[in-house]
């Protein structure tokens, strides 16, 4: 019998880059994944995570049946029974403690856009404002930085830039195919500047690698602003016509002399002057990109605002080779914030971090732990969590564990029995991205792609079907009228004028509106003043500084003999994404386990060598972990890095869930004071 071969074109969702892929099938079984050479984003190139999607989908440990926790351990139950029981429990808890005692937590693994909005729709239809996600510690702080200054988060026009500045971002590991855009610009003569405490993969190609101490990026940005203003290298016309707060900005910048910046950040004064000159001569083709590295600090949002303010100083806002505002896809939206406003119910964290809820309708996961454990500000008793593993990814793991263990109902949808799933009352098998069809937008290219269902497993529901079936059991079926995700996709697409058939015929992406040339007449900007806001009235009214005032990280203050090192966490690695993919055997061959990255001088002082084990201790807890002694250029003495997501040495046992950026509410995770002791050396 001959083998039936087929190729299905869809998108990879092993990370959020969503590269175009060709999935090769033999007799309906996936056998290979290669890049879709026509796709707008990746142009045929793929990182090695993509092919591993097959291993993930067919993994022997894949959960394929609903599980219920019983006194005798896990019991397999029929899907319909599981949904009936979950619906009954949710109804009971709602009647007892109110709808707001129930929450939804949507993980990174599920994706954003459409899937995020379905989860938001569900919990709002249920009557609770408590939508939780990884966004209260990733992405949103950068959104605020751009939204507050520019009125929107533009995309970096890397390929047309004359200078690219990567702030705390390492595309080769975090967004692999962004690297080819940087290469394209460099081949046209662009200079690359990388601002990162570590000599990251992208820093290997940098013309200038500025190596600030963790969390001091804001001081560097202010130093660059001072130089641009002092030398007259800024775009006067743009500043005069399109910004508010320049006098205040200018006055505040004055103290950030190159010498002061060197003292605070460790970046040499001469480098500050050199970078400012490079930006001035390249303006407005200065394309800056801010990564997650700037978010997890006590001063994250203001550091990001300072960087974004630089864009405006060099006139790079909405300019070719700078950054560009893009039009969102004209799709219908699924959220119910206008139809069913629930702000009066006190979304968790909205009182402490009003910006987080006001601008992103995001609740605060760290506050949720207090609601579960202490009933503060009110009891949270139930959670339906999908595609997340907060037991490895949220700060202060011990408290997360206690919180999840004390919920009256925890439902987890997952591919595998994760640390978080193992605490659930019900574990439901979830569909991977290869088992659902959804709309994706590539904002940079203003293109929409429809993904397709490449394989199926019985009893494994796609996200939409799950929310739909549960909603219909909870008398809120009216909010989920579409029979399946195809019907939903069709409804979402309707106002765009595009059809599902058209998208199916073009898996490389369909442009919904071509990116227009930058307008000659800029503005009004989508801020409250209609201008780029160096000083924010909105923040001032909420009681914050109106300027992105720089706050030196706490660890930079008085040296603490008890915790002499500063630990960065969460640096991205190519093969793993947050807590995922540790069960792909060949990934383990390549990168077998966790490690703490350490400067050779520190290793020598501690008497440890490559592979030796140390205990790293913070005020929160400790982990025991092997040492990786890096080259002296790769990290500064006194600074360490541990990547998150390893159950063997979970760095979030060390991170703080009570020290926040005051605007975003993001936890301090990239400048944690720690001490290090050699194992067997007496701790």
């Amino acid at each position, binding site marked *: 019998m001959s083998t039936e071969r087929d190729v299905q074109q869809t998108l990879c969702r092993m990370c959020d880059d969503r590269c175009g892929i060709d999935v090769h099938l033999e007799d309906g079984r996936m056998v290979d994944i*290669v*890049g879709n050479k026509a796709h707008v984003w*990746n142009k*045929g*190139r*793929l*990182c*090695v995570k993509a*092919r591993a999607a097959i291993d993930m989908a067919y993994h022997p440990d894949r959960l394929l049946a609903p599980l219920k926790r019983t006194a005798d351990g896990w019991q397999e139950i029929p899907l319909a029974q599981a949904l009936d029981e979950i619906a009954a429990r949710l109804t009971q808890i709602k009647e007892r403690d109110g709808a707001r005692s129930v929450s939804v937590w949507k993980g990174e693994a599920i994706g954003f856009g459409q899937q995020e909005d379905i989860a938001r729709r569900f919990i709002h239809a249920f009557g609770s404002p408590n939508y939780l996600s990884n966004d209260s510690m990733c992405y949103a702080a950068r959104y605020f930085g751009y939204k507050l200054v520019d009125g929107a988060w533009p995309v970096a026009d890397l390929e047309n830039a*004359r200078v690219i500045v990567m702030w705390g971002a390492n595309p*080769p*590991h975090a967004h*692999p*195919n962004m*690297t*080819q855009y*940087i*290469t*394209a610009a*460099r*081949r*046209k*003569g662009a200079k690359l500047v990388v601002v990162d405490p570590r*000599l990251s*993969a*992208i*820093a*290997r*190609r*940098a013309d200038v*690698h500025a190596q600030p101490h963790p969390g001091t990026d804001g001081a560097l940005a202010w130093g660059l602003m001072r130089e641009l203003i002092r030398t007259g290298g800024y775009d006067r016309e743009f500043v005069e016509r399109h910004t508010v707060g320049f006098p205040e900005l200018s006055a505040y910048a004055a103290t950030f002399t190159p010498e002061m910046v060197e003292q605070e950040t460790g970046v040499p004064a001469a480098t500050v002057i050199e970078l400012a000159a490079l930006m001035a001569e390249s303006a407005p083709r200065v394309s800056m990109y801010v990564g997650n590295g700037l978010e997890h600090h006590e001063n994250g949002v203001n550091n990001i605002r300072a960087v974004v303010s630089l864009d405006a100083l060099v006139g790079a806002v909405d300019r070719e080779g700078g950054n560009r505002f893009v039009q969102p896809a004209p799709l219908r939206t699924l959220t119910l914030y206008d139809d069913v406003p629930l702000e009066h119910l006190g979304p968790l964290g909205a009182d402490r971090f009003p910006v987080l809820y006001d601008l992103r309708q995001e609740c605060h996961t760290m506050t949720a732990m207090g609601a579960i454990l202490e009933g503060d500000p009110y009891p949270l008793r139930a959670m339906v969590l999908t595609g997340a593993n907060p037991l490895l990814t949220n700060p202060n793991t011990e408290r997360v564990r206690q919180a999840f263990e004390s919920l009256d109902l925890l439902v987890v949808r997952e591919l595998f029995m994760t640390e978080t799933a193992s605490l659930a009352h019900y574990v439901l098998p979830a569909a991977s991205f290869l088992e659902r069809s959804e709309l994706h937008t590539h904002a940079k290219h203003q293109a929409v792609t429809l993904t397709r269902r490449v394989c199926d497993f019985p009893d494994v529901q796609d996200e939409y079907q799950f929310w739909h079936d549960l909603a219909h059991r909870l008398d809120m079926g009216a909010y989920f009228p579409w029979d399946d995700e195809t019907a939903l996709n069709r409804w979402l697409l309707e106002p765009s004028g595009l059809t599902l058939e058209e998208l199916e015929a073009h898996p490389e992406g369909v442009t919904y509106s071509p990116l227009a040339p930058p307008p000659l007449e800029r503005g009004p900007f989508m801020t409250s003043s209609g201008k780029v806001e160096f000083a924010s009235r909105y923040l001032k009214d909420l009681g914050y500084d109106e300027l992105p005032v720089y706050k030196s990280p706490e660890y930079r203050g008085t040296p603490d003999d008890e915790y002499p090192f500063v630990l960065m966490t969460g640096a991205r690695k*190519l*093969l793993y994404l947050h807590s995922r993919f540790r069960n792909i*055997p*060949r*990934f383990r*061959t*390549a990168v077998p386990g966790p490690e703490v990255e350490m400067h050779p001088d520190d290793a020598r002082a501690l008497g440890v060598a490559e592979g030796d084990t140390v205990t790293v201790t913070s005020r929160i807890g400790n982990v025991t972990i092997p040492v990786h002694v*890096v*080259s002296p*250029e*790769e990290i500064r003495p006194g600074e360490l890095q541990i990547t998150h997501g390893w159950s063997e040495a979970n760095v979030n046992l060390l991170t703080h869930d009570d020290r926040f950026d005051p605007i975003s509410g993001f936890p301090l995770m990239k400048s944690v004071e720690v001490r290090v002791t050699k194992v067997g050396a007496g701790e």
Partner: protein
Amino acid sequence: MRIVAVDPDACVACRNCEYACAFRQTGDFDRTRSHIRVNYHPAERACVPLTCMHCAEAWCMEVCPAGAISRNAETGAVEIDKDHCAGCKMCLLACPFGNIGFDSTHGVSRKCDLCGGDPRCVGSCTSGALEYVEENDAFAFKRDALDAKLRQALRLDRGRR
């Protein structure tokens, strides 16, 4: 013929190519089994990807006493026939670039075969440092880069005058 052109100035030593090649050879991610090798030197920030150039005058092929090395008529790749390789390692010695490896499990030499005309290293190179291109113009990107830089320099120069 087409070859895998390498651009050390674009390489970030992310190791995607090594993993992809090793996976094709062995189903695993042991980088030492990759035919393309990337050396990284932090002090110089140098990334050096090296793979077989499929030399027009392939010394490995000439020196092979077993006649196990031949040129693929379709792709032009210089390939080792494992069934005929005697494991004498003369090809390793002959290659001026050190781009031939040895599979001690099977006792045979091993090298790049361009994956039959769709090299996996290139498909997984997210920096764009590797290109599968006609040898006649394999390093056109260098010329293009110089062209762009000169053009920009001239534009700047005009701007000053």
